[in-house]
């Protein structure tokens, strides 16, 4: 048992480094436009994704070997790892579909930071712990999967929106698009990717909030109690709903929509980490 524990931990630490290198390669690729660098970025991301998949599966198996079998989705460490896994998967899908590696430099940092934070922060325990009674519910699994899938899609949208804002600023000033910017996907494509990522993220977040409410109703007898974490997830939901409607409104398309997507992801980070670290409530990941 000791030796296999060793393996899942090891695989997930390796993943951290592999994603980090992928990020570095993508950034060098954006700066130098050397195709080898872009290819390396993709190879490392794919490799990281597979190694991480192995790590997550093993961690699941190990929890059974320890006699407390549960999905690897129940504490802050595991949720960060799962976020990175979804993010890498969704990012790769977009990269292959749009055949543009520039986004990597803007999306991989989120994935890398999540893994690095999970692996190196002294506040985060990596141990496989048994579940306290409130967390022993299948709703928890559905809740975590849907929320983090949504968060990962929003991370992709945020990265793309940052590209949009940078590119748009130059275009508005009628400045010559620098060497690098002219290699970005067109504004219309960036806008499209942003929308698609949110079109995946929004229903997932909605499902995440609903499964969370169902779970709260089972465990505490109230599907909604305005606890800070619930409230922040609703705030996030409002922001992305505003984004979706901005598209139907003159004056809100384009730049403002991109900013809404960036603000939305900021709200995700507050929901996810800020509430645990700064505010108190029912959700017990941080403690």
């Amino acid at each position, binding site marked *: 048992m000791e030796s296999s524990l060793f393996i899942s931990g090891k695989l997930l630490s390796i993943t951290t480094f592999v994603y980090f290198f992928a990020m570095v390669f993508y950034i060098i690729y954006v700066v130098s436009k050397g195709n080898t660098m872009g290819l390396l970025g993709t190879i490392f991301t794919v490799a990281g994704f597979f190694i991480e998949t192995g790590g997550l599966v093993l961690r699941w198996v190990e929890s059974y070997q320890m006699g407390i079998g549960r999905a690897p989705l129940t504490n802050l460490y595991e949720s960060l790892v799962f976020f990175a896994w979804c993010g890498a998967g969704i990012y790769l899908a977009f990269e292959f579909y749009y055949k543009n590696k520039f986004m990597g430099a803007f999306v991989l940092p989120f994935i890398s930071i999540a893994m690095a934070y999970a692996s190196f922060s002294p506040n985060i325990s990596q141990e496989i712990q048994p579940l306290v009674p409130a967390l022993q519910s299948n709703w928890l699994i559905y809740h975590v999967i849907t929320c983090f899938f949504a968060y990962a899609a929003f991370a992709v949208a945020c990265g793309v929106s940052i590209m949009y804002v940078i590119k748009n600023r130059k275009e508005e000033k009628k400045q010559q698009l620098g060497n690098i910017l002219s290699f970005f996907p067109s504004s219309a494509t960036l806008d499209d990717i942003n929308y698609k990522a949110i079109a995946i993220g929004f229903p997932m977040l909605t499902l995440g909030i609903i499964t969370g*409410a169902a779970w709260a109703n089972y465990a505490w007898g109230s599907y909604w109690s305005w606890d800070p974490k619930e*409230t922040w997830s609703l705030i996030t939901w409002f922001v992305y709903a505003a984004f979706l409607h901005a598209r139907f409104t003159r004056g809100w398309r384009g730049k403002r929509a991109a900013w809404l997507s960036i603000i939305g992801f900021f709200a995700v980070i507050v929901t996810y980490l800020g509430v645990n670290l700064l*505010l108190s409530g029912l959700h017990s990941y941080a403690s």
Partner: protein
Amino acid sequence: MAIKKDKFWGFLSSVSLAVVLLIVLAATSIIGTLIPQNGSYEEYLNQFGPVFTKVIETLDLFDMYHSWWFIFLLTLFTVNLILCSLKRLPPVLEQIKNPKKILTEELERSLSLSDTLRKKGSPERWKEAVKELLSKRYGTPDGEKIDDKSYLYFEKGKYSRLGVYITHLSIVIIMIGGLIGAFFGFRGFINIPEGSAANQVFLRGGRAPYNMDFVIRCDKFTLSYYPMGMVKEYRSDVTILENGREVKKDYLIVNRPLTYRGLTFYQSSYGVIDRHAKVRVFVKSGPNKGKSFEMDITDKFVNIPFSGDYVKVIEHYPNLENFGPAMILQIAEDGAMPVNFPVYKNLPDNDMNPQSKYFFKYLENEEHYYTGLQVTKDPGVWIVWTGCIMMMFGLYYSFFVVRKRIWVRVFFEGERTAITVAGHSPRSRMFEEEFAKILEDIKQLNV
């Protein structure tokens, strides 16, 4: 005047108002996550000082999600949503019922995706060939022949535009469910000692207690632990009695509530009513040195026989520091300050309090608990769940069912057959490629 009125309704049913309201709701909701909600007045005074407390109080920020202004925002939002949806729904329904099926020149000009091929072969044969090709992907078309021109109309994802309206309706339904819960439901708690029964629920918010027309008895409360000592389960075995007759036996654990006659009971807390421990006492020094006897200890001080010393049990652990079960005793000897020390079941020879005149050996431990149940009545909850399911359904339709329309016009144009194909989809970027592929496939056809 009429113009002003129109403007007002236009504004109230506009999407721009929706965007602004969503942002305002998001921004104001932050306040309640920064200021603790429903605390006591003293706490706020301590934390924020008198001036700020006054401001907060005036704006109802202590319970902001139920404040007049937040409820006003939610109402405005709902009105906006309903008006906007009602305004836009009829044309959408009309379009679903009677779509433009004939590709007129005018329609063709309004569509960005259209192309005309000119081919040899009879129009009839071409029409059949194109129909067969496209039917594979887009289902059976509507066909029509006007003068010498044949028309085909394919449509997929016909109802996808209803998704938005289902989503919007679901929001209204969830709100209705929430209101019903708020007006006709309650939340309270009930504490029941093991072996006792109760029927009075204490409600939150200072309301009068609620008397259930049945009785719930706690037969047994059990705590169980993981090997490493963390709590694994809180469990209450309960019986429901009506008119003294047992009607239902069940158990409750966290995440497994029990519903009976519209009331739902949740395992939410517990407490110890009294503790009993049995120990063997060995007297190590003093006048009684060498004596040994068994003794029952409770959570109130008990006199140790033949002395002026007292002892009580203050805590019990199923697994203390990985040495297994242990009790913490408190002993007061010769009128000195009481001293706490553990007594381990599995370490019967270890003296954890060498200064004392006594040595204790663990024999038995028994605790009596009460179970704390939360009790809720929420007749709106099923409406809320119905709304949630509708919302997922609506979102699925909005985002993943794409409406695609293809028009075909075929006629004999002098020597050749002219085949015009036009297409439309709200997800135009994805559809462009698909449309190009269709044209390519048609070009490859041989008739």
